[in-house]
């Protein structure tokens, strides 16, 4: 059996008819930039996320960058985040001119709130937790610290659309949140796209201008801005898929449960009672990582590592002055983690095949 890590064609085949209709409708309308279709999608997503405002932007990185830029974060400031994420998380801080300051993660792969206070100094302007792999960070603890030190909180929700923390969707648990609609995300489009979610009216108005050249009408520019818009055709695709998102996330959760209940000899992710993880990735930990990956590959199971080189050890981060040994959990996990295939269209048969291979490797 061959089990690819992702299989976007299956999802496409299931809803192709609707997507073709989106394509034809937008194609014929000539309305390729912004417009009602985008606004409808933004409103639907705001309802879904239980927030006041949602704005479509060009990609997930832009979402986080624009939020921080609009909050006035820049040169000389520091923003606290996790070192085990996709590099874009730290990059968005660098892009504003600020310095990313890393804090190690807990067993759940998310930033450890107990360590955040140690990293705060008078330059600190914000905390940017990452809801990694679809699992909410410990927002109550993080928000309490932010309140104590008067800091902004920005949720990097790129991998976590639909996840819940104490009953509430992530994205509405901070000043603002950035989501990614990259093709591999739980709500994925056919190109780059992102979303900003916020309950802050003033921030929303500011961001609305910043994403579109700072224009207040066709002929007047109030602030020099960016061009960071979600393509209307991609918004149409996303709007079609949004209807299925809860169903898809539920299925990912179900697959995760099957994995958890049946895998032996590896460390599986645990769900706390206050959280609903949407399993963008299902990350197991094992001491025999490389051998197991090879064994799975030989048996047709495609796996990945998210991520093998922590951000603080990337070449790009040399100027930040970190070294090996600075973040023990992050560094250990980068050598023991494997992400297993997990997507709604995966059949139970396929899931059990993966389980069987892992278990047979471990009992060999």
């Amino acid at each position, binding site marked *: 059996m061959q089990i690819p890590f*992702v299989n*976007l*064609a299956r999802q496409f085949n299931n809803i192709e008819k609707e997507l*073709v209709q989106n*394509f*034809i409708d*937008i*194609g014929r*309308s*000539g*309305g*390729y*930039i*912004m*417009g*009602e279709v985008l*606004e409808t999608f933004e409103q639907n997503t705001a309802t879904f996320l239980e927030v006041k405002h949602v704005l479509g932007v*060009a990609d997930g*990185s832009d979402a986080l960058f624009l939020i921080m830029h609009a909050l006035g974060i820049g*040169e000389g400031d520091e923003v606290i985040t996790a070192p085990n994420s996709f*590099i*874009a998380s730290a*990059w968005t801080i660098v*892009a504003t*001119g600020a310095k990313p300051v890393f804090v190690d993660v807990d067993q759940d792969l998310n930033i450890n709130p107990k360590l955040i206070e140690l990293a705060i100094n008078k330059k600190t302007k914000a905390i940017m937790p990452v809801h990694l792999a679809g699992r909410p960070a410990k927002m109550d603890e993080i928000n309490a610290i932010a309140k104590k030190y008067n800091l902004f909180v920005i949720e990097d929700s790129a991998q976590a659309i639909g996840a819940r923390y104490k009953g509430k969707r992530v994205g509405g648990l901070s000043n603002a949140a950035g989501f990614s609609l990259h*093709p591999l995300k739980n709500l994925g489009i*056919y*190109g*780059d796209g992102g979303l900003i979610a916020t309950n802050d009216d003033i921030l929303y*108005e500011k961001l*609305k201008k910043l994403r*579109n*050249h*700072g*224009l*207040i*009408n*066709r*002929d*007047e*520019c*109030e*602030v*020099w*801005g*960016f*061009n*960071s*818009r979600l*393509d*209307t*055709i*991609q918004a149409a695709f996303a709007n079609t898929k949004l209807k299925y998102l809860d169903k898809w996330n539920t299925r990912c959760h179900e697959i995760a449960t099957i994995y958890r209940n049946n895998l032996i000899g590896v460390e599986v992710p645990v769900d706390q009672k206050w959280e609903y993880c949407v399993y963008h990735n299902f990350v197991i930990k094992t001491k025999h990582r490389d051998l197991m990956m090879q064994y799975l590959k030989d048996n047709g199971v495609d796996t990945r*590592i998210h991520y093998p*080189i922590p*951000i603080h050890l*990337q*070449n*790009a*981060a040399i100027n930040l002055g970190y070294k090996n040994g600075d973040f023990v959990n992050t560094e250990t996990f980068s050598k023991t983690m494997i992400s297993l295939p997990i997507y709604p269209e995966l059949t139970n048969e396929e899931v059990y095949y993966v389980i069987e291979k892992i278990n047979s490797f471990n009992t060999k």
Partner: protein
Amino acid sequence: MSEVKNFLPEQYLQTGKLKINHNYLNDQFSDLDEIWLKIREVVLRGDFTLGSDVDKLEEEFSIASGAKYAIGVGSGTDALFLSLKVLGIGEGNEVITTPYTFYATIGAIVTAGAIPVFADVKDDFNIDPAEIERKITNKTKAILPVHWSGNPCDMEAIEKIALKYDLPVVCDACHAIKAEYNGKKSGSLGTLSCFSFHPLKNLNVWGDGGIITTNSDEIADKLRLLRNHGLVGRNDCKIFAYNSRLDTIQAVVARHLLKNKIDFITESRIKNANYFDEKLKNIKQIKIPNRDTNIKQVYHLYQFTCERRDELQEYLVSNGVDAKVHYPIPMHLQPAANFLNHNKGDFPKAEYISENTISLPVHEFITNEQQDEVINLINNFYN
């Protein structure tokens, strides 16, 4: 209620209220099925991010525009921004450009951290090389000429100044796909050239998109890092950098147009512009810019300056002709430019053009009969 109205859709959607539209997107994609089949292949391959169609477009575009390399990016604005960044331009630097342009030109300079320094334009609406030289200081790090409406700037003079002061030239060629200057294609002018595939451009995709051309190996390599998180492999990040990629499905649309339509689009626009020139040149209230025979301008816009501009625009619109103004307020007088402390009168030519220019529909779907109707209306107005 939001203070920022969404004004954009009006520009793209044909309302049916006007007979002769600036916009033609509904007519343009009559071959939807063909494009969908190609996009479908991309989707089934899962080839979304910098997929093979982007590679192919880059190769084809570099040939079509006369450059060694072309690098697809998120938009024309990003093309300008990344071009400045790849040259190391930022905080404290000055970039010389024209005050008569679209906001994105200035937005790219300011968001890169640099200060826009304006040099007034000539009667051809393009930056005046003599003015450029007067504006050079020890903080100047680049010259950014805009080939306005698809009409290449006086590049010989600009290149000479650039050479003298050892400055790179970033061409805003967002309007100028397929334009030529002294037989040189627009992608080969300057150190880098930035193109836009925005839906209203001559070569347009179904959303935002752009491309940068250059002959420099070093610049091309660095741009590929800058547009994609600085990644040299899936897991190796060499430098922290932006995410600004041309979507693969948009590259499919761009390839389709580049192969099948751009020559027709370009030639039709030139033909229509020449027709307008010929029929309007004797109206004394109108001043058509000089047409330089060494230049192939591609008429992204067809513009002239005229007396009683606002009244003429109103008259044309009320008679079903979608006449527009690109743009009524020059950059130095925008609210966003307050921090530069410019006043009215600082750039008289740019101001004159902004106050007196009008744009007529010139795209490939306009017929001679429609052009005659526009011409008659203009004649009637001035008589």
